[in-house]
């Protein structure tokens, strides 16, 4: 998304694709130890057979490596329920710039012996060391997964639906995604996906995961009855079989694809206080006016993460200037993050300052100099070019 793994000048590409072995899996603790080149979907299948799942899931599961997921601290669709890789990764094996192998590949839930070095490498985008093996805590496979798709009359209602779901679904809530009417229009136009509910300004996808189908369905129908009767939701549907679960998720997961077919896409991935999540979209729509084809907002509402996308017939410097630094400044004003999930890579390294104070940026540069004095690890990325 931000060109983090794209060579830009004179780099050598290192692939861990051949390091694709599962080292061990302990089915009582659920701790999986594997090499960094394992593909996420393959790990999911391995675990599924043993009644466990990976704590993260994303659209790119068919090709992404777990090492890459950890290096970018990938978020994904299960973040709301299982949390960040910073919590689920228990240990790492990392090769440092000078060739030293740092073996912190423990499988312990608790280990307060000294500084937690693995946290440096998680999300470091390959700039501090190369992850070669991962030890990760995997949750048991939920026996019952339910998906509901709802239409909301306004963003305020989306937020209230979220609060209601959190309150009434409690521990079984596993995903809460939103998308606006423009997104639905685009997936309909470019991918011919049918809208399962009546046209609404906003749509919400709610997923529950639990160990008891009866208990979960009852809780879900209860909360849906509540939001329907109180007017927070104008229409909705519940998936009655796996095929419908996949079709409902596709409406959300394939938005990116639909956008890429609409023209040139300017992509922003922002963390904001959840009440203000959609305000930026509205502001931007007014600001860019007819210069853009579409300005859409969707994302992990539960995580306060907005995916803001602007499409145009073709790239235009004029449109780019209207968007940047406006979007970043707007975000900084809300003390949000200019890159919630996607990282900095090549494209966003110079906007780090909008979300981190100068002292923090300086310390990051010091750590980089300490661990990679010759600057050989994924150069030209992540940290701003020093003056």
């Amino acid at each position, binding site marked *: 998304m931000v060109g983090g793994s794209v060579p830009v000048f004179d780099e050598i590409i290192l692939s861990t694709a051949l390091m694709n072995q599962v080292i061990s899996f302990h089915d009582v603790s659920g701790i999986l130890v594997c090499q960094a080149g394992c593909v996420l979907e393959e790990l999911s299948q391995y675990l*599924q057979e043993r009644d466990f799942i990976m704590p993260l899931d994303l659209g790119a599961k068919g090709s992404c490596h777990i090492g890459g997921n950890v290096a970018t601290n990938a978020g994904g669709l299960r973040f709301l329920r299982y949390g960040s890789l910073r919590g689920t990764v228990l240990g790492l094996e990392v090769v440092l710039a000078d060739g030293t192998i740092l073996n912190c590949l423990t499988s312990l839930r608790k280990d307060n012996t000294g500084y937690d070095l693995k946290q440096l490498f998680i999300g470091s985008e390959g700039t501090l060391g190369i992850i070669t093996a991962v030890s990760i805590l995997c949750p048991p496979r939920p*026996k*019952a997964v339910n998906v509901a*798709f*709802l239409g909301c009359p306004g963003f305020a209602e989306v937020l209230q639906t979220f609060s209601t779901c959190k309150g009434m679904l409690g521990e079984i809530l596993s995903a809460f995604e939103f998308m606006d009417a423009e997104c639905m229009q685009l997936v309909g136009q470019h991918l011919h996906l049918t809208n*399962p*509910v*009546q046209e609404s300004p906003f749509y919400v996808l709610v997923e529950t995961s639990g160990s008891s*189908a009866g208990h979960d369905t009852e809780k879900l*129908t209860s909360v*849906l*009855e509540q939001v*329907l009767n109180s007017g927070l*939701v104008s*229409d*909705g*549907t*519940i*998936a*009655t*079989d*796996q*095929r*419908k679960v*996949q079709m409902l998720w596709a409406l959300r997961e394939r938005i990116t694809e639909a956008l890429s077919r609409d023209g040139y896409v300017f992509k922003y991935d922002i963390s904001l206080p959840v009440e203000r999540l959609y305000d930026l979209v509205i502001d931007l729509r007014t600001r860019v006016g007819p210069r853009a084809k579409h300005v859409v907002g969707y994302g992990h509402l539960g995580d306060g993460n907005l995916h803001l996308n602007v499409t145009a017939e073709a790239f235009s410097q004029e449109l780019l200037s209207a968007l940047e630094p406006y979007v970043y400044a707007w975000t900084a004003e809300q003390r949000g993050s200019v890159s919630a999930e996607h990282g900095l890579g090549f494209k966003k390294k110079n906007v780090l300052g909008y979300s981190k104070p100068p002292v923090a940026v300086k310390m990051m540069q010091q750590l980089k100099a300490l661990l990679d004095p010759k600057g050989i690890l994924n150069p030209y990325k992540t940290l701003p070019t020093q003056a």
Partner: protein
Amino acid sequence: MAELRALVAVKRVIDFAVKIRVKPDKSGVVTDGVKHSMNPFCEIAVEEAVRLKEKKLVKEVIAVSCGPAQCQETIRTALAMGADRGIHVEVPAAQAESLGPLQVARVLAKLAEKEKVDLLFLGKQAIDDDCNQTGQMTAGLLDWPQGTFASQVTLEGDKIKVEREIDGGLETIRLKLPSVVTADLRLNEPRYATLPNIMKAKKKKIEVMKPGDLGVDLTSKISVISVEEPPQRLAGVKVETTEDLVAKLKEVGRI
């Protein structure tokens, strides 16, 4: 003719997306804790019946299912799609294992007569046993005409025109009502049950009865001897050159 009434039979099966596991004692497949849902072809049958009702060609749609208590979930799904009421022919779990097409056909035939319906819709086959017999057997027991593998259905007064998917292409037949129709994949795209309808469905009536109430005997002359997984597919062998390929093929007696 808004006086027509339809009965739709629905079956609760293991969800098509589930990875099936055979029980270690080979007596069947693992069903405990496994996700079940309405058989996809039954869903298409319900959708067709509901569409006819929406076109005001059918007055009432009744959904029926035979089996243990959980069948009521499947009937509720049919009600949420638009069926008016449900009938659950209750068969305890232990006995349900011997419920085959002939037993279900006997139940449906009796019900069709009792409810005096003009149309009996079913899915063409269930995805668990792939029998593709229930519709045909029911029509035989009732001595009603049948239109199976329907990909299009048109009501014409007291007759029904059915376009069927057959090996050679499409066959169109005209049947006098009452008749049996089994749904094939291309008949329609089932709707999503919307929340308001799901809520309404909770209040719709499901009548529970026993096979004995219909005077049906469920004994089966078929017993399952064993259920096994298909043999594991052996890995292929890669060769370096065309000469190697020819040699290997000769070695295994293929050429």
